[in-house]
């Protein structure tokens, strides 16, 4: 059983005050902490406090933070949330990675190597920074190295929808081009969860006629940026924001879908940068949330998940920032559904992309999803 204690802060002084207070009142010895922090807070200063106390830290900059427990029902947009836990140090290993010149796939493979060496039966949680990162390639890299069926959860760090610089960090340091990871020993820790979207495809099928990795140059043999602007009748300044709310839906041959939000544009090349790979030749459509009923979809999926896994110590939620944009105040409803159903704390942040593993399938990279990670120590 993992015990946990969380707090929120709107600024650095508030953090320092609460950090000391909570730590003093803590009824357990903290071993591992989670921190999701706005880029407007002095992250390096915050890190030093965990370092001094020798507490392992898993942290990412965010597009908004969320915390639901006995004493919080909080969705903040420019603050920070922190959670202390007493995870058994035998059952987890943490490490930061710097991407340097590696491709997204090679970077994933490096992380996968670490997973494989850590435990015979590893499960991974990862937060990655850097806007050029291809989340799909990262996932495939991990799978190539650690095995296709490796359970994996996580998200891409955010920066308050500015799309300039995102960060991941641990108790020792910070990177705008790397990843922070925790590998759990799945023999002693249940690491499971779900990813649900509810987004629907709209309009005619289009063909991606030129793309490399997560950069799309041409759709239907026309410049990708032009197509996006024309179909949605928006201007340059509306992108990439509009491309997050109305992402591309890739229709795969096996009938499955994957959503790809726009993370950046290149006006010179008329191209679009997506949060994950968009293979050349893919059939795609535009997509949108079906309206506020999407919460109903989440509710059903949570209910089904509860049937399979009723016990939980802690939830970490990686929820797409586009979901927050689309659902607005209603976003609290679907988070509360989880917290109330299990009567377990939910902490997390709004991401630029989610990594999750639905039961019975292998891990995938998503956009627009509500990706919930459930932790339970045996």
């Amino acid at each position, binding site marked *: 059983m993992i015990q946990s204690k969380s707090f929120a802060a709107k600024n650095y002084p508030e953090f320092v005050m609460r950090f000391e207070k909570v730590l003093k009142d803590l009824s357990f010895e903290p071993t591992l902490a989670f921190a999701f922090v706005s880029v407007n807070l002095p992250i390096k200063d915050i890190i030093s406090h965990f370092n001094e106390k020798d507490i392992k830290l898993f942290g990412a900059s965010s597009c908004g933070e969320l915390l639901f427990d006995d004493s919080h029902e909080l969705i903040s947009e420019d603050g920070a949330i922190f959670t202390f836990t007493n995870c058994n140090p035998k059952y987890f290993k943490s490490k930061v990675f710097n991407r340097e010149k590696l491709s997204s796939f090679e970077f994933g493979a490096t992380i996968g190597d670490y997973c494989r060496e850590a435990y015979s039966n590893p499960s991974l949680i990862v937060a990655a920074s850097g806007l050029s990162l291809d989340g799909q390639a990262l996932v495939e890299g991990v799978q190539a190295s650690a095995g296709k069926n490796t359970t994996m959860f996580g998200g891409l760090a955010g920066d308050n929808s500015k799309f300039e610089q995102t960060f991941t960090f641990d108790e020792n340091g910070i990177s705008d081009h790397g990843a922070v990871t925790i590998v759990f020993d799945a023999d002693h820790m249940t690491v499971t969860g779900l990813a649900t979207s509810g987004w629907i495809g709209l*309009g005619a099928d289009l063909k991606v006629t030129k793309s490399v990795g997560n950069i799309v140059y041409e759709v239907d043999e026309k410049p990708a940026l032009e197509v996006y602007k024309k*179909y949605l009748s928006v201007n340059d300044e509306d992108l990439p924001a509009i491309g997050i709310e109305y992402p591309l839906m890739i229709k795969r041959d096996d009938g499955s879908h994957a959503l790809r939000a726009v993370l950046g544009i290149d006006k010179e090349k008329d191209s679009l940068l997506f949060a994950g790979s968009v293979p050349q030749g893919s059939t795609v459509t535009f997509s*949108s949330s079906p309206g506020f009923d999407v919460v109903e979809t989440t509710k059903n999926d949570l209910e089904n998940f509860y049937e399979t896994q009723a016990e939980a110590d802690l939830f970490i939620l990686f929820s797409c920032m586009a979901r927050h944009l689309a659902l*607005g105040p209603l976003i609290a409803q679907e988070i509360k559904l989880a917290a109330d159903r299990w009567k377990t704390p939910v902490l997390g942040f709004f991401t630029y992309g989610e990594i999750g593993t639905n039961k019975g399938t292998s891990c995938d990279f998503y956009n627009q999803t509500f990706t919930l990670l459930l932790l339970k120590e045996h």
Partner: protein
Amino acid sequence: MIKTIDEIIQLLDASLTAEDFTENKALLRSMLTQLRNESQLIDFKSEKMLKDKHVLNSLLKKTSEDLHLALKELQLRADELNTLLSTIPALVYFKDRELRYQLVNDAYMEFVEKPMKEIIGKQMEDIIPEHNEKEKYGHYEKLVLLKGEPIYNLEEKVTKNGEQLWIASNLAAVKNDQGEIIGLVGISWDITQARTYQNQLETAKDQAEEGTRAKSEFLANMSHEIRTPLNGIIGMSHILSNTELTEKQQEFVHILISSGDTLLSLINDILDFSKIEAGKIDFEEKDFELNTIIKDVYNVLSLKAEEKSLLFSFEPDNKIPQRFNGDEYRLKQVILNLTNNAIKFTDQGFVKVMINHLGSSKGYHELKFTVKDSGIGIPKDRLDQLFNAFTQVDASMTKAYGGTGLGLTISKKLVGMMEGKMGVESKLGQGSSFWFTVKLKYPENKTSADIIETENPSQQSMLDENLVVLLAEDNLVNQKIASYNLKQLGYRVEIANNGQEAIEKFKENEYNFILMDIQMPVMNGHDATKEIRRLEEEMAGRKHTPIIALTANAMRGDMERCFAVGMDAYLSKPFKSADLMNVLKEYIITD
């Protein structure tokens, strides 16, 4: 929200009369807060919905445009296809699995003289009842439906308005997305005219073949007609050369003989060409001397060379053996042809014939002959076709230089039959160099030919002086030549002027052998031979008398006919002593 507002109003109404307002104040605040939250949500929702509406409208608009464009494109394609189908000069039709028409093009409707609505859903027998080969056609249609493989150029006869038409069709299976055969498409077109042309072509070909046959017959007759007097010229020349003559006269006679021989060879070559074309030509195998050939060629052509003041020379290398076994005439013919050409096409300078011994192995010598001249030369682009029949470099050349254009073709074929090759190097204006190689057998030592070629009667008496020969020959000149040759070999000769006389003489005397001409008055050689053979059976004690056919009719099949009536050997006129000797050696007196 309305409910909350009503409650607030109620509460405010109550508050107006209440004694203590404080109690309601807290409740009112909580209700207003709730109202605020709800309107915030409504604000968000309406803002979001406006955004959605904008984006979705745009998407819808653009998608409709796309759809419109796609439909237009589709219509365009359909129009194009329709245009194609209606203008294509072929009958196009789709049929379902039950072979019912589903769609036909304009040409089809025109052909069957029915509108679309009378065709769709019907089968062929309803539409073209006068189709002559319905069963065959139906069979192939079913085959296409069964196997899915196309059938091309299916030809059938159709009677239309009493007129017989030929139709060719291509049939192919039509498959759905799952690859199941759902019908077939057929494309047919009228090939009646093509068929007519084909028939005309066949008739023309028959006529041409008939013409060729007539030509062969003509050649055969001509050769016979020409050979008879030529026979006389050559024979008499030989006789003349054995009389007392001055050296000069002797030389003239020799040229006469040599020219006669060449003319005979040329006639034979014209015949040979048809034999070569038929792939059937005979080669002699006889010992000969290379020098004889060189002398002959020189004698025939030196006069011409002198007339043009050309340096004409033979340059054999010193390693060359003198005697060979093979076909002297064929070899001479080739050299003569190339050399004659060289002289013909050279106006000044030289013509030289170089002979090299390339080597010897397995009983053969290999020689290379090169005829080099300083003549007009041959353009590079004409070298390839030079060896084709009836080809000279330029058609105008035929007029200027004469010749049939057959020579090189025959020469090359002959060389090929002597296991050799022929080629040419030439530069326009700088002369030509024709070469060929041949393989010639080592000579057989001391053959009869050796003896005879000395042409000295005193050395020919290897045969019994008492030997008697019956010569059946109607032509006086030929009688003389043959008698002379036989006497040279030591035979006594009795003459019969026709087949009937030959039979009479045969009844009275026994002969060592009979020389029998084929074409004779009263009774021909064939019939006479048959009768003689019959008599031999009847007359006890008469042994088999060898009969040698003598004929100028050197066409294919002659030999076979002679053997069929019971003759033993065959000699082509005019014959030389050596030819006769060979035949005697081989067929008559071997025992």
